[in-house]
Every structure is written in C-alpha cells, then in structure tokens.
C-alpha cells in the first residue's frame, strides 16, 4: 500500500500542473518523451515479429505455388468461366483485372498456354511437376520423388522441381545445437562453480573477465578458426571421414555459447546468500561439499535458465555453422555434415527470388527460429525472475 501512495505523490499532474506546486510542463513533457522512447523497445520486438511473419504468411495460407504443369483453360472457353475464376487463374489483383478489356485478357490466356508449352518434355508426364511442393505435407512428410526409390526427406530448393522438406534442417539444427550444449554446459557450469565458490578472490578477478572476453570474439572469427584449425585437429583425434561435419560445428558453437552460460550461471551462484555458505561451513562441510550440496541446489533454477538461454543462442548462431558445414543431409550421425536453419537462410536468401516460394519459405524458417528463441528467452527470464524473487524472500 505504502509504495503506491508514495508513487502517486511523486507523479506530476497533467502537463506538470499540480495543485500547490509550481507548474512544470517541460518536466512533464520530458517524462512522457522518455516513456515513449522506452516503449520503442516493445515496438521493435513487435515489428520483428510482424514483418518476418508477414513475408511468410503466404506459405501458412497455401498461397504459394510451385507446380510447373497446371490445368490450362483454353482461351476460346474463357466465357464459360466466371470473372472471379479467371482473375485467380491469371494471378491478377481485382484492380488489375477490372482495368483490362476482353482482348488483353485473352492474350494473357494465350501467354499462359504458351508458357505450358515451354515446359521441357520430361516434365510433361512427371508427377512431381504437377504438385505444389510448398504444401505442408511436402514440407513435413517424406515424399517419394520421381528419381528416388523410396519416400525421403529432401531439401533441394534449386532446379526445376524445388523440394522444400524442412525436416533435414530441423534435424541438422537440433544435432548441432545439442552437441554444442553437451560440450558447453558442463564446462561453463563447472567453471562457474569454480570461479564463484572455490577460487581465491584474486583468481576470480582475473578468470571472470577473461572468460567473458570469449564472447567478444566475433562469430566469423570462431567459424574461421573452426574451419582452418579445429576441423583438422578433431579429425586427427577422432579419425572420421568427412572433415567438416556436425561435430566440428557443434564444438565451435560451444565456444560461442560458453561465455553466455558461464556468466548467467556464475551470476546465479553468486547471488545465493552468503548465510547459506557460512552456515554449511560452520557445520563442518568442506568448500566443495558446500558448493555441491548447498549452493548449486539453491542456484539450480539459475543454472537451468542459463542452459535454456544458451540453447536460444545456439540455435540462432549463423556464421559458425555456415562456415563449418552446410550440406543438407538427412542423417542422425554426428560425423555427417548437417545444415541448420540459420545456415539455410543465410546461404540461400541471396539466390531466392524476392517474393517467390523459396523466399517465403526462408522467411517461414526465420519465423520458426524467432518463435523458438522467443519461447526459450521467456522461459529463461521467467525462471531467473522467480529465482531472484525467492532469494530476496518475495513470492
């Protein structure tokens, strides 16, 4: 009750006019301006969501079409069809359609027929040339393509028949991310325990900023290092065939994620009240017992949040994976090449036609990525918030 009253007294009235006080319109305007500017952060998140989703909407509503061969309406039968049907068939907007006279429409229909004649012979009879590969079942389920023996997951956005199955990309992303996290989480959390609980203050003063410095290395540089040095070293150690694979990408990704997990976990471990540690030590526990049995359990939500936020960073990392491996192979083996969602977007956006099906699907992948990181951020922040409140005794 008390804080809200205090708050109310402090706020100036409309335009800074407040009974019994000097009017301060400038003060009032400044406060409103500052408030409006800070709202822009909300606007930015909103705009990112809206504009990434906007470019992807046609995929969600099934308005993209990649079918090469489509049913043709002979121009002389055009009067049998309703104007609405013709407009859809000719892919015109209502305004464009209205602006055209009968003859222009007829010539457009001739063009349509000629376009069908231009399709190479081998696709006339092909089943694949008749389907719209951007439908959800082709995006998610395996499909038996003409040249393949059994139904398969294929991402192959170039060529006459574009195959957009996103499952290989999801598997690739998951594979690389999990390897990265399996490598980074134990290391980062271990280091966080050491730095926050066990190390001498002088060591801590040096170790903490040094580890945080790792996050200052640009991801192209990490990718470059992985490509030239790490890949060769790891191949010598493990002796696998493909030099650039998901394993190398995962480890390099781990380098990028370690500082994030470390600093959040370290923060959580440090914020456990000193009374806990002192009580444990007073009862005769060793430093390690205190760290492992008292501090770590108390800080577990924070460590969990660090992992979740690290996951969010890892699935969004682009340049490292782009430089280290990029072939889209559907395989669960960690020593095969893999292609992540981010890599696909980065590598293919330049060649995708602005507004075309490929472009739309890349934006859809971006929206997917945004949603995934949004959710993991929300979970991470929520857990940390609860954890801090609990430590401070608030509920």
């Amino acid at each position, binding site marked *: 009750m008390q*804080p809200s009253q205090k708050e109310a007294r402090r706020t100036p009235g409309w335009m800074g006019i407040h009974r019994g006080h000097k009017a301060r319109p400038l003060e009032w305007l400044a406060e409103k301006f*500052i408030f409006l*500017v800070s709202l*822009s*952060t*909300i606007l*930015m*998140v909103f705009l*990112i969501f809206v*504009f*990434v989703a*906007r*470019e992807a909407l046609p995929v969600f509503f099934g308005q993209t079409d990649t079918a090469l061969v489509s049913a043709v309406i002979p121009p002389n039968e055009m009067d049998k069809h309703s104007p609405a049907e013709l407009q859809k068939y000719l892919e015109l907007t209502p305004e464009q359609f209205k602006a055209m006279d009968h003859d222009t429409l007829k010539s457009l229909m001739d063009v349509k027929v000629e376009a069908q004649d231009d399709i190479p012979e081998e696709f006339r009879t092909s089943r694949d040339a008749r389907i719209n590969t951007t439908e959800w079942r082709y995006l998610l389920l395996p499909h038996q393509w003409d040249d393949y023996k059994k139904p398969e997951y294929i991402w192959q956005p170039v060529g006459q028949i574009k195959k957009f199955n996103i499952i290989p990309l999801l598997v690739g992303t998951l594979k690389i991310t999990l390897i990265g996290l399996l490598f980074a989480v134990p290391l980062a959390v*271990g*280091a966080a325990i*050491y*730095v926050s609980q*066990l*190390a*001498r*203050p002088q060591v801590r003063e040096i*170790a903490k*900023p040094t*580890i945080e*410095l790792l996050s*200052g*290395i*640009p*991801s*192209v540089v*990490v990718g*470059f290092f992985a490509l*030239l040095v790490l890949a060769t070293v790891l191949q010598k150690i493990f002796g696998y065939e493909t030099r650039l694979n998901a394993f190398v990408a995962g480890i390099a990704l781990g*380098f990028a994620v*370690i500082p994030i997990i470390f600093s959040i976990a370290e923060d959580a471990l440090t914020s456990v009240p*000193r009374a806990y540690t*002192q009580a444990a*030590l007073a009862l*005769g526990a*060793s*430093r390690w*017992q205190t760290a492992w049995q008292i501090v770590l359990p108390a800080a577990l939500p924070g460590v969990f949040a660090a992992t979740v*936020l690290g996951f969010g960073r890892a699935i*969004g990392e*682009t*340049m490292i994976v782009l*430089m280290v491996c990029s072939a889209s192979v559907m395989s669960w083996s960690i020593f095969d090449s893999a292609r992540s969602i*981010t890599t696909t*977007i*980065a590598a293919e*956006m*330049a060649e995708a036609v602005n507004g075309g099906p490929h472009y739309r699907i*890349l*934006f859809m992948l*971006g929206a997917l*990525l*945004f949603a995934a990181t*949004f959710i993991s951020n*929300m979970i991470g*922040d929520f857990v940390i918030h609860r954890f801090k409140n609990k430590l401070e005794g608030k509920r």
Partner: protein
Amino acid sequence: MSEVLSPKSKVQSRHFRAEKFDFWSFFFSGLTGLATLLIIGILAVILINIIVNGWQGFTWHFVSTIPKKDFFDIKTTGVLPMIIGTTFRVLVMTIFVIPVGVITAIYLTEYAPSNSLITRIIRAAVNNLAGVPSIVFGLFGLGFFINFIGKNMDVLLHNTGAVWGQPALIWASLTLAVMTVPVVIVATEESLKAIPPGLREASLALGATKLETILKIVLPQALPGIMTGGILAVSRAAGEVAPILFTGVAYYMASLPSHLSDQFMDLGYHVFVLSTQSPNIEQTRPILYATVLVLLVLTFALNIVAIIIRSNIRRKMRSLH
C-alpha cells in the same frame, strides 16, 4: 562485505584441510578448476593462433590498400575499403542506438514504477531483443527496412529505379541498431544503478527538479557506463555478419561508399568470403589470417577498453554498498 569475510573463511578452510584430507573435495575442485582453465585455454589458443599466423601479413600496406577484384593476390590485396565500410556502418548505428538505449535505461532506472506491468513488459522486450538470432535481424531488415520502408520511400520520392528499396548502408546500420539496443540499455542501467541514491536525494533537496537532477547530476556520473555500453555495442556490431548479409553488404565494390543508400564492403563478411571461396586455402592463408587479425584488433581492443571501464564501475559500486 566480501573483503571483510574472505580472510576469515580462508582460515576456516585451511583449518579443515589440516584436519582431514577430503579426496572428493580435492578431486571435484580440481575438475571445475580444469574446466575454467580449459575455457581460458580455448580463448588463448584462438588468439595466439591468429596473432602468430597473422602478424606478418598485418602490414601498413595491407591495411591501407584498396584491392582489385581478385582478393587472393598477395601483392595487390588489402582491406582498406572493408575497414572503412565497417567503420561507417557502425558509426551510423551509434547515432541511432545510443540515444534510444540511454533514454530507455533512464526510464527504467529513474522513472519506471518498479513492478508495474508496463515496466515488466519493457524489460521482457529488452531481454527478448537480446536473444533474437542475428540472422532473424537480417530477415527483419530485409522485410521491414528494405521491402517496406525503402520501397515506399522510393514510391513517395518518385525515384526511378530502386534507390532506397535495396540493400544499403543505412538499412544495415538500422538493423544493427535494433540488434544492439539491449547492450546499451543494460550497460547504462548498470552504471545508473551504481550512482548512490544520496546524490539524487541531495540534488532534489536543494530544489532541483527531477529532470535537472538527471541531466546535471546523474548523467555526468553515468558517463563511463554509457561509454562502455556504446563501445560494447560497437564491438558487437563490428563483428556481426549475419544481420548485414541481406541488408547492405557487397562482395565487391569498385568505389568507397559515399552515400547512405550505397552498399559497402565489410571486414567480417570479407573474412567469410576469403575463408569459404578461396581457390587454394594453403596459398591464401597469410591473407586470411591477416584479415582476421585486423577484425580481431578492431573488435577486441574495444572490448578490452569496455571491460576495464566496467570493472572500475563494478568496484566503485561494491564499495558503495
């Protein structure tokens, strides 16, 4: 607080060690210590590898030469246009990001009611912005700045052909500004919180208004923190490649960017191009390493400066509480 307590606890732990040697304690302390060492080792290996292999190519000639289209010729290659491009895009970005970031931080620390819904939403938005993948920022830049704002600007200004509705320096900078806003906010907020409340109260008690207190007392004190935020944002942005891939970077430009609607060459992107499209990686290795070293010097030097300022602020803050 920690300074008062640490000698005491040191005595305690020494006492325990003398009494009973606990193997598991020793083992796990060693293991976590090893994890710490390994991480620092990774950092050291990356840095040493790049410095050792790169310093020979890191000459004045290399830094100050405008290369021909063939980047892989050792004699004529250079990175001047990339350094200029990266500097430009980052400077334009700071013009946008610093005011927005600082003002938002001022709102969050000085004005915002501490637990109201709107404050929590703003905080959640800032955290989210910090977590959005950089490639999504690139898509956003393409979808919003180029395809929406840029194309509409061309229509309104009656431009023939695409002037603004195509990848350009300004769009890359704006995209990066959106990406680095949280960095500035967090750093500024930290330094604002480090200023003792007594200072504000004294100013208010002397009759200054809230705005005057913020402008004349709080902000000057917070300046190092704001600088840290700016430097960190600049160093983060200078190293990012993914957000500019579709919003402004060019593989090769014959001339330097002279207008906000020009495309530009970029150091980070150049590293990517060199390391993935080199015809013979063994031969071009010196050029590659030298380019990486230039990028690292640019981003890392800034980072170290920021870390030093920041640790000073943190020390000051600790002595206050």
